[in-house]
C-alpha cells in the first residue's frame, strides 16, 4: 500500500506538471480534477488499509545529497489519510463541477501539488521528507492564495501567509536538529532512539508548537489563517481548512507523541492545552463577529483546531501522569474531532463557494434568503453548521462530547494547578462550543434565511451536477459520522494504541464513552429518541390541528410593507451581520478583541444619517502588524547608517576589522 501511495505522490506531481498543458481546455481541467477525485478515493482506501495492516516503511531511490528519503505508513499516519482523502475527493469534485471553460494554469497546477505535499508530509519517515512535504504544501497553497492579485487584501494575505510558511519550516528544522542531537541524523527511527529530555525537550516542543501550531492555526500564530483561507478559491479553502490544518496537527502529534518519546513529563501538555483553549475561544468569538462568510468559517477552523489541541494536550498530560486509559480517551476525542471537522468544514466551505458562485458575494450583508433559491446548498450547509455548532446527533457533538468527558476526567491528575487549569479549560471549551453555535446560527441564518439583501442574492442560481454531489457526500458523512462514532473509534484503535500505549476504551459500535463505569453517549439511540419525539409531536399536533397553513404579509409588530421600488423589502430593516454580532461584541469582544463601537451623530439640522461604526481587531494580528514592524524598522534605520557611509568610512570599517583582529590575536598570543 505504501508503494502505491508513494507512486500517488509522484503521480500527483506529474499531474501538476501536466496541468500546464491541460489547462488550455475545459476537458483538460476536468481531467485534472477528476484524477484528483480518484486520488482522494485512493487516499481513503490507503488510510483504511494502513489502519488494518501493520506499519511499513519504504526507502525512496532518491533524496537529498546526504541520504535517501524515507516513507512509512503506520496507523497514526493512516488515520490522517482519511480526512485528507475525503477532503481532497470532495474538494476536487466540487472544483470539477465548477469548470465551464479553460482554467488558468496557475489555478490548476498547484492543486495536485498541494495534495501531493500533504500526502508526502503524512507519509514522511525522516525530517527532510517531512519538511519537503510540509513546505511543498505551504508553497502550493500559497500559489493558490496568491492567484487573485487584483485585491490588495488578498495580496496582503498571501504575503503574510508565505512569511508564516517559511517561519514554520524554519522552526521545524530547528526542532528536528535539536532532537537529533550530535549525530545529526533526522530519520524518525534515529530520533525515536534518542528522544530529547530536559530543556531540550521543552525547546523542541516549543519550536514544534510554533512551527506546526502556526500552520494549524493555534493562537497566537493563527493570524494568517483567517486572512489566507478565504482568499483562495473555495475548494482550496476547504482543503486548507479541512485537510492542511490536520496535516499540521499530524506533525504536532508525530513530534509530541512519537518522536519525543513516551517518557515526557506532565507539564508538556499544559502549553498545548492553554494555547488550545485560547485558540478555541478567540476563534469562535471571531467567527461570531466576522462579516465575511469564508473568513467566518476560517475562524471557526481556528476554534476547532483549538479544541483538538486541547484534546492532544490532555492526552500528553495523561501520558505524563501515567493515566493511559484517559490518554486514550483524550486522543480518541482529538482524532475523531480532527476527522469530523475535516468533513464538516469542507462541506461548509464548499457551500460558501456555491453561494459565492450563485450570489457573487461572500459578505453576509449582501446575501440572505438563499434557501429559496439554493435549497440543496442550504440544507447541506445546515448539516455542516449543525455539526459545527455541536448539535446532537451530528458528528461535531460526538467528538466534542468525548473531549468534554476527557476534560471532566482530567482532575484525576493529582496536580492542583493542573486541576484548576483544566477546570477553567473546560469552561472555556464550553464557551467556545456555544460561541461556535452562535456563529453558525448567524452564518446560516444570515446567508440562507430572511430576505435577499442584494438583487444578486435574489437572483442566485444553484449549480447541479458534480458540485451538488460534492456537497451531499460530506453532508451524508457528517450525519453518518455523528451516528457511528463508535465504528470510527474501532477503526482508529491501532492509532490510539500507538499514541497512548494501551487499548482504547471500547464501548461497542453504538456508543462512545470513557473508561468503564463512566458516561456513555449512544448517538444512534439518541437520534432515534429524538426522531421518535419529533414524530410524536407531529402526530399529536396533526391529530388535533386543522391541516394547511395560510400565508400573509410579514407581521413584525405591524411593520410597514416594503416600498414598491424595493421588491425584496428594504435590506436595512433586516438584522445585519454587524447587528447580529452586537451582543457578543459588547459582552466579550471588548475585552478579548478590542472591539469598538462609535456613533457619529450628524449636527442638529443636518439631514445626514447618523452612523454607527463597529469593529474589532485580533490582538495577535495587531501585535504582528504593530510593534514587530516598528522594531524592525527601528533596527533597520540604525543599520542603514552603516549603509550611508562614504567609501572612506567603509574603508574605515575594514581597517577597524583588521585592527580589531590583530588586537585579538595579540591578546590571544599574550595569554
Amino acid at each position: 500500500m505504501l508503494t502505491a501511495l508513494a507512486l500517488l505522490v509522484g503521480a500527483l506531481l506529474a499531474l501538476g506538471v501536466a496541468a500546464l498543458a491541460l489547462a488550455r481546455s475545459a476537458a483538460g481541467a476536468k481531467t485534472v480534477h477528476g484524477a484528483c477525485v480518484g486520488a482522494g478515493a485512493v487516499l481513503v482506501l490507503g488510510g483504511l488499509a494502513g489502519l488494518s495492516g501493520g506499519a511499513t516503511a519504504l526507502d525512496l531511490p532518491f533524496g537529498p545529497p546526504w541520504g535517501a528519503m524515507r516513507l512509512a505508513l503506520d496507523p497514526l499516519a493512516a488515520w490522517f489519510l482519511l480526512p485528507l482523502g475525503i477532503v481532497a475527493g470532495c474538494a476536487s469534485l466540487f472544483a470539477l463541477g465548477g469548470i465551464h471553460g479553460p482554467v488558468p494554469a496557475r489555478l490548476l497546477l498547484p492543486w495536485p501539488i498541494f495534495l501531493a505535499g500533504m500526502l508526502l508530509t503524512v507519509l514522511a519517515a525522516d525530517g527532510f521528507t517531512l519538511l519537503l512535504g510540509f513546505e511543498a504544501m505551504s508553497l502550493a497553497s500559497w500559489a493558490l492564495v496568491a492567484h487573485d492579485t487584483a485585491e490588495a487584501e488578498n495580496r496582503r494575505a498571501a504575503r503574510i501567509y508565505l512569511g508564516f510558511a517559511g517561519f514554520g519550516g524554519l522552526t521545524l528544522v530547528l526542532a528536528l536538529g535539536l532532537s537529533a542531537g550530535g549525530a545529526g541524523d533526522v530519520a524518525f527511527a534515529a530520533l525515536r532512539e534518542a528522544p530529547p529530555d530536559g530543556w531540550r525537550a521543552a525547546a523542541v516542543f516549543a519550536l514544534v508548537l510554533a512551527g506546526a501550531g502556526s500552520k494549524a492555526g493555534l493562537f497566537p500564530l493563527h493570524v494568517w489563517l483567517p486572512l489566507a483561507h478565504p482568499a483562495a478559491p473555495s475548494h482550496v479553502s476547504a482543503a486548507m481548512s479541512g485537510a492542511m490544518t490536520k496535516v499540521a496537527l499530524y506533525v504536532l502529534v508525530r513530534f509530541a507523541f512519537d518522536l519525543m518519546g513516551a517518557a515526557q513529563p506532565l507539564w508538556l501538555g499544559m502549553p498545548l492545552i492553554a494555547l488550545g483553549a485560547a485558540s478555541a475561544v478567540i476563534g469562535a468569538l471571531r467567527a461570531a463577529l466576522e462579516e465575511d462568510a469564508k473568513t467566518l468559517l476560517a475562524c471557526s477552523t481556528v476554534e476547532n483546531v483549538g479544541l483538538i489541541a486541547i484534546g492532544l494536550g490532555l492526552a500528553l498530560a495523561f501520558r505524563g501522569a501515567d493515566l493511559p486509559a484517559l490518554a486514550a480517551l483524550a486522543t480518541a476525542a482529538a482524532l475523531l474531532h480532527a476527522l469530523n471537522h475535516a468533513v464538516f468544514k469542507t462541506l461548509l466551505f464548499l457551500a460558501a463557494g456555491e453561494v459565492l458562485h450563485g450570489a457573487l458575494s461572500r459578505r453576509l450583508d449582501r446575501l440572505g434568503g438563499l434557501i429559496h433559491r439554493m435549497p440543496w446548498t442550504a440544507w447541506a450547509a445546515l448539516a455542516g453548521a449543525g455539526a459545527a455548532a455541536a448539535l446532537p446527533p451530528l458528528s461535531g457533538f460526538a467528538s466534542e462530547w468525548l473531549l468534554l468527558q476527557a476534560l471532566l476526567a482530567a482532575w484525576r491528575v493529582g496536580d492542583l494547578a493542573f486541576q484548576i487549569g483544566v477546570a477553567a479549560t473546560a469552561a472555556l471549551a464550553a464557551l467556545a462550543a456555544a460561541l461556535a453555535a452562535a456563529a453558525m446560527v448567524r452564518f446560516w441564518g444570515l446567508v440562507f434565511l430572511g430576505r435577499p439583501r442584494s438583487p444578486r442574492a435574489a437572483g442566485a442560481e444553484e449549480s447541479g451536477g458534480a458540485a451538488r454531489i460534492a456537497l451531499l457526500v460530506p453532508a451524508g458523512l457528517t450525519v453518518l459520522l455523528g451516528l457511528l462514532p463508535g465504528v470510527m473509534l474501532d477503526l482508529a484503535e491501532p492509532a490510539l494504541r500507538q499514541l497512548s500505549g494501551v487499548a482504547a476504551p471500547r464501548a461497542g459500535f453504538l456508543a462512545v464513552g470513557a473508561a468503564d463505569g463512566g458516561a456513555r453517549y449512544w448517538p444512534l439511540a439518541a437520534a432515534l429518541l429524538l426522531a421518535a419525539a419529533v414524530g410524536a409531536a407531529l402526530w399529536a399536533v396533526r391529530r388535533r390541528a386543522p391541516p394547511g397553513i395560510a400565508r400573509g404579509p410579514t407581521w413584525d409588530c405591524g411593520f410597514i410593507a416594503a416600498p414598491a421600488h424595493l421588491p425584496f423589502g428594504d435590506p436595512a430593516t433586516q438584522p445585519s451581520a454587524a447587528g447580529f454580532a452586537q451582543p457578543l461584541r459588547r459582552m466579550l469582544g471588548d475585552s478579548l478583541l478590542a472591539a469598538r463601537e462609535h456613533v457619529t451623530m450628524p449636527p442638529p439640522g443636518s439631514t445626514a444619517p447618523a452612523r454607527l461604526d463597529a469593529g474589532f481587531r485580533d490582538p495577535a494580528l495587531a501585535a504582528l502588524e504593530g510593534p514587530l514592524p516598528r522594531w524592525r524598522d527601528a533596527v533597520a534605520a540604525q543599520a542603514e547608517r552603516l549603509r550611508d557611509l562614504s567609501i572612506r568610512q567603509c574603508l574605515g570599517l575594514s581597517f577597524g576589522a583588521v585592527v580589531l583582529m590583530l588586537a585579538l590575536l595579540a591578546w590571544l598570543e599574550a595569554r
Partner: protein
Amino acid sequence: MSFGQLGYDVAHLLGGGVLLLSFVLLYQRRIGAVINAFAMQGALLALAAAWAAHAQGVAGLYLTAMLTMAAKGVLIPLALHATVRRLDLHRTVETALGIGPSLVAGVGLVALAILVALPATEGARALAREDLALALSVVLLGMLMMITRRNAISQVIGLLSLENGLILAAIGVAGMPLVVELSTAALVLMIAVVAAVFAFQIRERFDTLDTASLEEHRGERR
C-alpha cells in the same frame, strides 16, 4: 643567519626607511609633497628589493627592483602630478583626522604591528621577523592614510603605500616563490587604480561624491 651582520643591517635600515616615509606621508600637508614622499618611498623600496636580490642571490628580485623604481619612483608620481594639474584638484591635503592625531594613531599602529608580529613569528629568522613587523606597520599606516585623508589622490597614495608594505614583506621572506610575479601583479593592480582615478575622473574626494550620488541615482534613501 644565512648572511652577515651587514646584510641584516642594511636590510633593516632600508625597511625602517620605508616605514619612516610612511610617517612622512602622514605628516605632509601639501599634495605635491605627499607625492614626492611617495616617490621616495618607492625608490627606497626598490633599493631594498635590490639589496634583497643581492643578499639572497635571487636574480628575479632585480627585476622587481627595477620595476618598482620605474613605476613607483618615477612614473606613478609623474602621473599623479599630472593628474593633479590636469584635473585641478585641491592642492592641500584635507584631513578627516588631524595630522597630530594621525601620527599618534600611526605610532599606536606600529606598536600593535610589533606586538602582533613578533610573538607570532617565533621560530622564524630575525630578519624576517623584523621585516614582517615593519611591513605590517607600513600596511597599517597605508590604510590609516586612506581613511584619514579626504582627497582622492591622498587616498590612492595610501593604497599605493600599503602595497609598498606588501612588497616589503614579500622581499623580506627569503626564498618566497613567485615573488616577482606577485609583486608585478600587485603593481599592475596599483597602476590600474591610478588609471581608474584618471578614467573615472574622480575629481573630488570620494567622500562627497560616493553614496550621495548613488542614493540620488537609485532613490534608495528614505
